[in-house]
């Protein structure tokens, strides 16, 4: 009887253990299957989307353009290897019944799946830009219902990035032309200001300066040239940053995904992915908003507008105005509403300096938030200080 009891007890214990094992494992396997299926779905989806447009390997779709690439594929391979590592660690965790190893491998798996999801979403947004970005041609993002300057030059539209770089290039040309013209005007005024006539009648000598007070303009013009020079420099910097677009997409994004796959470089990977998303998706859209706000205040196409200049007769007229009505009236006439230099001030101050600065600050803030969502904390205070 006693032996029977013992046997029954041991059998019961075993069945309980078996039940526990089955209860513990079945939900895991089903959730694992779900994760695995969803992962494979993303892999196949991305593979199919590449395959339909660009061929299976070595290419990816970027804003409607097929670009050869290694790193997107490399990052996919590394993510797959990471999945294998996570699975191996999970097996070890099960074998050793070590909860921490199991938890660690699960976390790793979820992070990799997160990276795959980010890649899928990002590629989807970038690829869909081709479809929805042209609708921005006639849509004013700043003042709803107002016309856009883009709609008049729709023939130049290739894609969002090209349009934005073209717009910044136009701002550069406009500023360069303005600097050139202002230097020309200053030099013309200076010729008058430095010219003196020597009248000699018998032994009597007298020097007359034609426009002695003209040299007083030099400090004012020097400030204006300095401001335009810094505008030109930062516009060139903006263009260079926009030109990094393709490099950010083809290099920093996949490297960020690789970095994000490993625990100790996760925050760095998150920062890299966030920077790519911020600077390739949000920044170009902000430039469209800048263009719209700029057009609202100065309804002329900067790409077609010639920089302000004063002809020889204009200079004579300026001199007459100063002589007749005083310098303040001349400043109002040329720099005030409807004046020749009004456009320059609006373009240089609003479109080229203030709005881009705000846009960069906003993009950095968005980037910081995206990085936080992706699991990393980055301190952009240094960059903000540089701006």
């Amino acid at each position, binding site marked *: 009887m006693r032996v029977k009891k013992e046997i029954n007890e041991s059998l019961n214990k075993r069945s309980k253990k078996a039940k526990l094992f089955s209860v513990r494992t079945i939900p895991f396997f089903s959730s694992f299957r779900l994760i695995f299926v969803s992962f494979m779905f993303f892999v196949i989806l991305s593979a199919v989307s590449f395959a339909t447009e660009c061929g299976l390997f070595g290419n990816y779709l970027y804003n409607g353009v097929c670009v050869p690439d290694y790193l997107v594929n490399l990052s996919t391979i590394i993510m797959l290897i990471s999945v294998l590592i996570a699975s191996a660690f999970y097996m070890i965790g099960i074998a050793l019944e070590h909860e921490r190893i199991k938890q660690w491998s699960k976390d790793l798996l979820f992070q990799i799946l997160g990276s795959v999801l980010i890649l899928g979403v990002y590629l989807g947004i970038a690829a869909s830009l081709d479809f929805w970005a042209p609708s921005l041609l006639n849509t004013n993002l700043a003042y709803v219902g107002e016309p856009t300057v883009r709609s008049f030059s729709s023939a130049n539209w290739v894609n969002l990035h090209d349009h934005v770089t073209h717009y910044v290039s136009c701002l550069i040309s406009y500023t360069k032309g303005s600097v050139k013209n202002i230097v020309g005007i200053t*030099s013309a005024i*200076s010729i008058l200001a430095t010219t003196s006539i020597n009248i000699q009648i018998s032994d009597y000598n007298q020097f007359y300066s034609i426009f002695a007070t003209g040299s007083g303009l030099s400090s004012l013009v020097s400030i204006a040239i300095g401001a335009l020079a810094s505008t*030109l420099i930062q*516009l060139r910097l903006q263009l260079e940053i926009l030109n990094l677009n393709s*490099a950010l997409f083809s290099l920093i994004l996949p490297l960020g995904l690789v970095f994000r796959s490993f625990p*100790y470089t996760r925050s760095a990977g998150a920062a890299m992915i966030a920077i790519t998303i911020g600077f390739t998706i949000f920044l170009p859209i902000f430039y469209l908003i800048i263009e719209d706000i700029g057009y609202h205040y100065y309804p002329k196409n900067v790409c077609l507008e010639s920089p302000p200049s004063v002809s020889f007769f204009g200079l004579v007229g300026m001199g007459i105005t100063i002589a007749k009505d005083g310098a303040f009236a001349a400043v109002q006439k040329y720099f005030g509403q409807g004046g020749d230099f009004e456009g320059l001030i609006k373009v240089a101050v609003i479109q080229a300096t203030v709005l881009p600065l705000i846009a960069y600050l906003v993009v950095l803030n968005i980037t910081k938030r995206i990085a936080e969502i992706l699991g990393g904390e*980055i301190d952009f205070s240094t960059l903000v200080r*540089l701006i």
Partner: protein
Amino acid sequence: MMERMKELINRKKERKRKERKTNSLQTDTLQTEILQKNTFQTEAQGIPLSSGAFILFVLLFFFILSNLLSAELISPENLPTGCEVATKLDFGNQTGPTSAEQNWKSLSFIGLLLSAAFVSIIYMIGKAIDAPGLMARAKTDLIQVAVTGIALVFLYGILSSLCAIDAKEFGFGFSSFFDGANKYFEYSRAYALKTYLEATNSIMEISALTSFRINSPNFIDLGTFFKLGVYIQPYAGYGVTIGAINWFASLVLLSYSLITGFMVVLNAIQTYFLNLLLPAGVVLRCFSPTRDFGGILIAISIGLFVFYPLLFSFSYMMISKGGELSPPGLPNMDWEGKINWAVSRAIIVSSIPLGSAVQLIGQLSTGGNLATDSLLNAYEDVGPAILFIYILPAINWIILAAIVRELSKVLGQEVDISGLARMI
């Protein structure tokens, strides 16, 4: 009776003494058990251990000092690359930073052995004086020695695989990531130099032009009785641009120094961080009182040795669009020739009898246009220089700070190196 009483009292005393002895033995064993249980949590105040660590630290300090002194003998041209330092163990070259006695692998191995020996001695002392706390702590330290050893093996594996990747095979313009970082710095420095020379060229051209004067005392000569002279400074207006270009030239000069500083930092990281900081960190990490500090040293040395060049090689990939950049050509510094050419043409035109004034003005404006073009070129090139020398390095430092923070959190105490980015 009295004798019996005395005997009884003595027996009682003996019994009490015995009880006290057994109690003390029990508390001793309890204490040892508690200590053994808490060994993984308690960090210690054990005097012999910290003195052992102190002796080791002093020894290591002298060792590092002697290495640094001998390092002065190494010329910058002979500095090994980061991958040589990481993977090579040159037994033949006894004076180089990669030689056996200065290599991080041998130093770390020796450091681990010495630490294990010290820990064993401490364990022996603990056993001899019957101090279970000391023994337990020594056991923990021994486990840490083993863990550090395993981590070092992993590190060597990672470094070897990183150095085995030849980026040229993937179509990039450099072989190892150290090579990529070097190329980035060299290109940025060349670009800064080009921009600085352009700015200087422009300043010199404008200065030369503004000093140009036309003085004609007998412009209208009506005999000795009446003369009308003219004095003109045709390019005086260009002087207003000098203030701005001077400011930007000094900014570019500063950036040239900054990029040179980055290169020196890279050289120092390549040669000394793994060879000196890592072994020091490894040894300090083996002992309880200095474990956190050792972890920080390891995090900084690995973080900077691997990720500083890696991030800058990414930057090189970005600016070169994955290819190889040829260094930017230096500008033509013959400003004097250009001005002389323009002025001589103006003189020739003016000397022609009845030469048109419009032609003269046209020739004079040629010199002005040359100056304006060089000025605009200089202004324009400052933008990319700022990107290469300020913006991209600042982003790299931000990412680097995040990596080092994560690593130091794992290895010991959280350390924030983001303040270094403020240097920029």
